[in-house]
């Protein structure tokens, strides 16, 4: 398959050692408005001080329960919503600041694929046109854009002569998700954010799409940010994994190490909640009780302490800082910090 594409490939500016994405202190609160008497009702702390580092040509998986801020993070990174605070550096260039990379330029380099493959596509456009639409807006002549679109359809495994003229409703869910991936590729992006992109697919189709994603990553030297609630899929596809809880990162590290030796009690609970697939060893007790709490005005201290089996008085007063516990492996738990005063600290 040829890799020479018609749009100029955004060049690797920072060199291989420069992380493609560096995020520091990303924060977004959604205010709840004020009550009848003008009293502020507080805010949803959707993303609260998140740091992310994604090295080039790797995959970072983000996991967590619903409402933990995974998708908000994705939207903040693509500037679909404006962050309240925080610095985003794309391949060495600060995003949206004077002298840095512009938002328009960023979006050419960074594309999103969503969960709902049908809602993501314009129902009145053939898929060939849907893929050509973006590059055309960015100034590629119509003829070349369509040519490029057909090339991409072939690349994601949809025969352009057979499928190019179809509308989204004429495709199956797996085929539609391939179209969305092709459309994301239309700009020759360097980073693709996959927000639950394979979650709605049936297992047999999900495997096809995962294989496709792995192939494309190698062929096109892509970097992925893979957001999912399915821990098995994240383990399969990611190099690093980041565990989020109530808008904060609780643990981040190489996927094998985090899965084998999870240090945060929340990561441990999350991993043991995965069905085992072994009928002789069914899960016998629940690793966590209760639902994920509400991110409105979270309590001070550790946000997980209400559900944590190892919580101690000290957890209520100190917000656990991120502590390095291994190569690239850090955890935000007082038990990982010997100086914290938690009785189980090591």
């Amino acid at each position: 398959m040829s890799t020479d594409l018609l749009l100029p490939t955004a060049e690797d500016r920072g060199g291989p050692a420069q992380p493609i994405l560096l995020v520091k202190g990303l924060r977004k609160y959604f205010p709840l408005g004020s009550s009848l008497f003008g009293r502020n009702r507080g805010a949803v702390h959707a993303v609260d001080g998140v740091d992310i580092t994604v090295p080039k040509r790797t995959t970072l998986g983000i996991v967590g329960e619903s409402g933990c801020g995974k998708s908000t993070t994705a939207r903040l990174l693509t500037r679909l919503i404006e962050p309240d605070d925080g610095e985003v550096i794309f391949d060495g260039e600060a995003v949206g600041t004077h002298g840095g990379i512009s938002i328009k330029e960023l979006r050419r380099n960074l594309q999103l694929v969503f969960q709902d493959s049908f809602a993501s596509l314009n129902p009145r456009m053939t898929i060939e046109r849907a893929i050509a639409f973006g590059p055309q807006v960015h100034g590629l002549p119509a003829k070349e854009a369509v040519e490029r679109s057909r090339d991409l359809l072939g690349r994601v495994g949809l025969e352009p002569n057979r499928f190019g003229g179809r509308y989204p409703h004429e495709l199956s869910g797996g085929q539609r998700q391939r179209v969305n991936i092709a459309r994301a590729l239309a700009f020759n992006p360097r980073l693709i954010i996959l927000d639950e992109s394979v979650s709605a697919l049936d297992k047999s189709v999900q495997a096809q799409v995962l294989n496709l994603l792995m192939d494309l990553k190698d062929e096109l030297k892509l970097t992925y940010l893979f957001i999912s609630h399915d821990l098995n899929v994240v383990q399969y596809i990611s190099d690093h994994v980041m565990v989020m809880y109530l808008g904060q990162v609780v643990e981040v590290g190489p996927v094998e190490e985090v899965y084998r030796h999870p240090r945060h009690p929340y990561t441990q609970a999350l991993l043991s909640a995965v069905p085992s697939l072994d009928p002789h060893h069914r899960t016998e007790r629940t690793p966590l009780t209760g639902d994920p709490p509400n991110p409105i005005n979270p309590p001070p201290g550790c946000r997980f302490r209400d559900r944590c089996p190892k919580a101690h008085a000290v957890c209520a007063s100190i917000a656990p800082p991120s502590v390095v516990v291994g190569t690239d492996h850090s955890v935000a738990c007082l038990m990982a910090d010997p100086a914290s005063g938690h009785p189980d600290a090591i």
Partner: protein
Amino acid sequence: MSNLITVSDLTVTFGGARPVHAVNGVSFTVGTGEVLGLLGESGCGKSVTLRSLIRLHPPRRTTYGGRIEVDGQDILGMDEEQLCRYRGAVTSMIFQEPLLAFDPVYSIGRQIGEAIRRHTGIDARAAEAEAIRLLDRVQIPQAAKRYHAYPHEMSGGMRQRAMIALALSCRPKLLLADEPTTALDATVQIQILLLLRELQREMGLSIIFVTHDIGVAVEISDRVAVMYAGRIIEQGPIADIISAPAHPYTQGLLASTVTQNMRGSRLEAIPGAPPDLANLPVGCAFADRCRQASAQCRAAPPPYDSRLGRGLACFHPLTESVAP
């Protein structure tokens, strides 16, 4: 173990100019106190089969064939009044989205109480006490307070617990579960599965649990039936199906499911997509995606052969022990 449910050669067709054959000759039995998992991908007919057991399909557009017998009663032959008595009292159902299953304008406690009064005729005070007891039983904290909560005021996991309380309020013998944990987080999903298992043992319930997730099926079922294009293609004890699948589709489904420690290996995806239910092939519906397929498979659908607790519909099974 006596059979509580006997389904024989069930067919469900949704009418119109282009009829959709959603279920094409499904037969199975479920014993008292047994949990059957119905496993399959979207559009395979698992939910349609489940809903037929309580006759939830729109009567004017649905044509049933075959026979469903639950607790000695012929379900397909019931009139509307008999159905009302049957639903809730003998068989009840829980759904994927409890927010849609509850009435948004009444508190959950009142809805549970209403169901109890409708079926048992006890007075309002006693029904309230019973509803609170049930809410407490499904481990809803502060049940007496939660009695007055509206569905939108509860979290997804709590709503699902409330729906289980509602479904079990009239002490049914059979619980139909249509992907009740799919919309929940993994940590909440396992809580609900454990709760269902506990209640099932305690009440001696039979459960038919529809899911597309093999992991969930393993956690809850004694026996599992795998469906494809409106037919059961393989059936047996969960441990046997997982360790030695005989149908190529079951094998493919297991191989393409991402499990722990599969990193670095390429996934064995099943090529293609399921067939169109309005235009089913004459032969085996899986033949086009199957590596084992032969001319025989394309000529006529393989008969469903059941023996030694295992059933299979395939001309070329992968495991010799269950070969017809």
